[in-house]
């Protein structure tokens, strides 16, 4: 990875108008700088604008506002009404549904970009062979995509994308049509290809664990807005919003009321939770933590009891009442409490967020239909 900016988005905005939904801002003022050789993920639920952004970078959509720069070249600009068509952007791209052409055999599929570029026949042969080898497809040249498994088809798509040696590789949920075991292998293979060829990856996914595993940095977006851009670890440890907290990893939320700087579970002010609220706390807040970050003890902390105990393969999960809410926490198997047993919980340095916004929820549902 170098410090050179490979992909730059400035004030990129995309509005769609449909007959049924009115105008929807699918992408709202995105500003991004992706470095050369970086693996950058767009992460978010469906309808968050991640795929639209990718398609604008690829050149399939125009921009309502803003501009996009690829490898130092301006490729899209709404102000200048400039749109370099996709075929002149020198990108590699892999799609969710593979998009390998069923009427061509594997060799022809991978050779297509070179033939279009009028590369000499002998060079085509050696480069296709090379690409197939990198994607462990050697020996299958004469077969047709219909004769191959999903994983192999996605490898064809990868081979086709790397054969022109592009500087930027766009991956649009390339793993979501594969089964879980294969997903992990392919993830590794993509990273390995990146190491060898040194291209920049933009990876679109709604799967947070996939994004975490593959990315150098990632952007979490929701309802057409960028929520946070950071490294996977920072996003997990210091989410800046309830949404990001909830989207990455497992979360436990507790609605609380704050009175005289003391924190009570919402709707039940008999016992306070032993944490200090931030100075700017509202009277109603949500505290957010991870199930495995809540300590379960015999007698130090908020007193409660075990409502339910669930044995999971690698941990034990407990549900404990906190006021009127049931709180989920997870412990190693060695911490054993019986259902009904009295216990205490301790919550260390939680995140503080304002209470849930009903309107935002409705808007999210509306966008997913769109």
């Amino acid at each position: 990875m170098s410090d050179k900016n490979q992909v730059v988005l400035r004030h990129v905005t995309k509005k769609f108008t449909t007959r049924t939904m009115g105008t929807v801002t699918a992408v709202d003022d995105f500003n991004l700088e992706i470095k050369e050789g970086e693996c950058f993920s767009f992460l978010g639920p469906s309808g968050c604008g991640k795929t639209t952004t990718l398609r604008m970078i690829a050149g399939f959509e125009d921009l309502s506002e803003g501009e996009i720069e690829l490898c130092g070249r301006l490729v899209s600009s709404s102000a200048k009404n400039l749109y370099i068509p996709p075929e002149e952007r020198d990108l590699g791209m892999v799609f969710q549904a593979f998009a390998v052409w069923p009427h061509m055999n594997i060799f022809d599929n991978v050779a297509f970009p070179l033939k279009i570029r009028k590369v000499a026949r002998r060079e085509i042969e050696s480069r296709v062979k090379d690409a197939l080898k990198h994607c462990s497809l050697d020996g299958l040249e004469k077969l047709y995509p219909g004769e191959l498994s999903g994983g192999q088809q996605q490898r064809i798509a990868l081979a086709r994308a790397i054969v022109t040696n592009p500087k930027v590789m766009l991956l649009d949920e390339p793993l979501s049509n594969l089964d879980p075991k294969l997903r992990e292998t392919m993830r590794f293979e993509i990273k390995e290809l990146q190491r060898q060829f040194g291209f920049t990856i933009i990876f679109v996914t709604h799967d947070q664990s996939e994004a975490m595993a593959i990315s150098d940095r990632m952007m979490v977006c929701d309802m057409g807005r960028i929520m946070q851009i950071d490294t996977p670890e920072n996003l997990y440890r210091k989410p800046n919003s309830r949404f990001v907290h909830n989207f990455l990893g497992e979360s436990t939320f507790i609605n609380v009321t704050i009175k005289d700087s003391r924190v009570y579970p919402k709707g039940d002010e008999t016992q306070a939770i032993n944490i200090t609220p931030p100075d700017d706390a509202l009277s109603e807040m949500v505290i957010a933590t991870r199930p495995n970050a809540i300590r379960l003890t015999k007698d130090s902390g908020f007193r409660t009891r075990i409502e339910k105990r669930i044995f999971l393969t690698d941990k034990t999960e407990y549900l404990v009442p906190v006021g009127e809410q049931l709180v989920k926490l997870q412990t190693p198997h060695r911490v054993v409490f019986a259902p009904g047993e009295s216990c205490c919980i301790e919550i260390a340095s939680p995140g503080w967020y304002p209470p849930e916004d009903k309107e935002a929820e409705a808007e999210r549902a509306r966008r997913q239909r769109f």
Partner: protein
Amino acid sequence: MFKRKSNSDLAAMEGRKFGLDGIMTALSFVLLFIIVVIPIFMIIYNAFFYQGKFDLTLFTSVIFDKENLKAMGNTIIIAVAVTIFGTIMGLFYAWLLGRSDIPAKGFMRALFTIPYMFPPFFGAMAWDLLFSGRAGYINRWLMSTFHLRTPPVNINSLGGIIFVECSYYFPFVFMQVVSALERMDPTLEESARIAGARQSQVIWKITLPLVKPAISAGALLILISSLAHFGVPSILGFSKNIFTLPTMIYALINKSGGSFEGIRQGTALSILLVAVVAVALVIQKKVLSSGSYDIIKGKSMRPTLIKLRGAKYPLLFLACLTLLVIVVVPLVMIFLVALVKAYGLPLVWKNFSLSNYQKVFASPATMDSIWNSLFLSVTAGVVCMFLGVMIAYVINRIKPRGRNVLEILSILPYSIPGTVLAIGVILAWSGAIFKITLYNTIWIILVAYMARYLSFSMKSASASLQQVNSSLEEASRACGATHTESLRDITLPLIKPAMVSGFFLIFLPAMRELTTSILLYGPYSRTLGVQIFALRDAGMIPQAAALASVAIVIIIVCNSIVTWITKDRKGA
């Protein structure tokens, strides 16, 4: 774990099951044997056997007859030309509507349904009114304005027949290709753009090869329909002695006044027609099985539409204009001529009257023909609806031995030209076997309609049954319902929409049927199509137009009812 059923339980269960299922299976076989197998057998038998002995003389004499060979040549020339031009036209519109940003797509789509609704021989009548020799309205106008000696356009020619058939058959390719384009995963095209291909290269190297199966499916449908087509060549060709195989068969039988000799000659010619169609069917099967790709999209995504920019409005104008001319003008023409007092009078206000309609409605023969058609269409529709469901159920659920035979038998008549089917029905039901004579009655037409249209309702019911998981019926059995009750309360209600649409799939084409009826009608069993044809044949052209316009109104009303019914269901 499982309690073993006692033998008597099993037997009782099997026994009950066998009861209903067995009856349905047997009934399906018997009915298809009577409706389909007997007529086909009779054709083959009569073509090659004479008075119980194998005899090829008739067959060879008919086949090597010069006129017949010419008719065969015409049939093939027309069919091939219609296929080529219809495919090009269908492709052009499919691309325009499926991949370009042309406006008014909904309007154009509505125009495409018109050729489906109306029988091509209405179109042939209208074009004949406009361009037939010195009499056609436009020809006369052109001759007087430009002082021409000879009529500039002659619709009574191979070219004219090809043109009119084209305008009715091109939607086959259009529909197939548009639906393929809509189902196609747009990323297949997008990945080619990313790979460096320009828009035009994508069309040639990716889009066209991928929809090739759809193109060939539509093109072969045109080919087979055109080979068997009767209406257009009969209207446009008879006056100039241009014959195709189906019209030649009709002419032979008509000339002989329904004598057995004429029917025998027609039978031999039918074998020739079937042979030509069979070749086309074999090609169809080969082509369709060779290339079918899975191009269904994964994510719902709008395809990137090609911006026509400056060409947008000229192309829109051209597309709408050609569609209007070939689709709407003929219909309007029929209404205008229906109002004119006598054929040939200029189409101006003072020559218009409703006298043709008075004559039409006053004539008992004409009113009979309307009632006959309604009776035949409704009866064939209802009977086939239930038969179709029964056969579909037997094939899909009971799966008896020989269900492939059942399936082939129920679909086979669809590929047999209507003319040939009519001859088979004549041979089978004029008392030759079982001494049942239906000839010259309305029932012989009903039998022919049933054979011809059974596959429509069978396919519709079959597709619907495949959607209904058999576990639904099993769940009802588990709740204590008997086999009959499950069928009545679970399966039938679930496939009811398919049954209703199956009915209309038969009712609508049966209302405007001409090809088989024209060979089967008797003095009291004229159908609507036959009566229009006969009026025109007798020179009463304005009256024929008046009756055709009545038919158009009936068809439009029925179609609106269908749309209304189906829309209502979607809303619920």
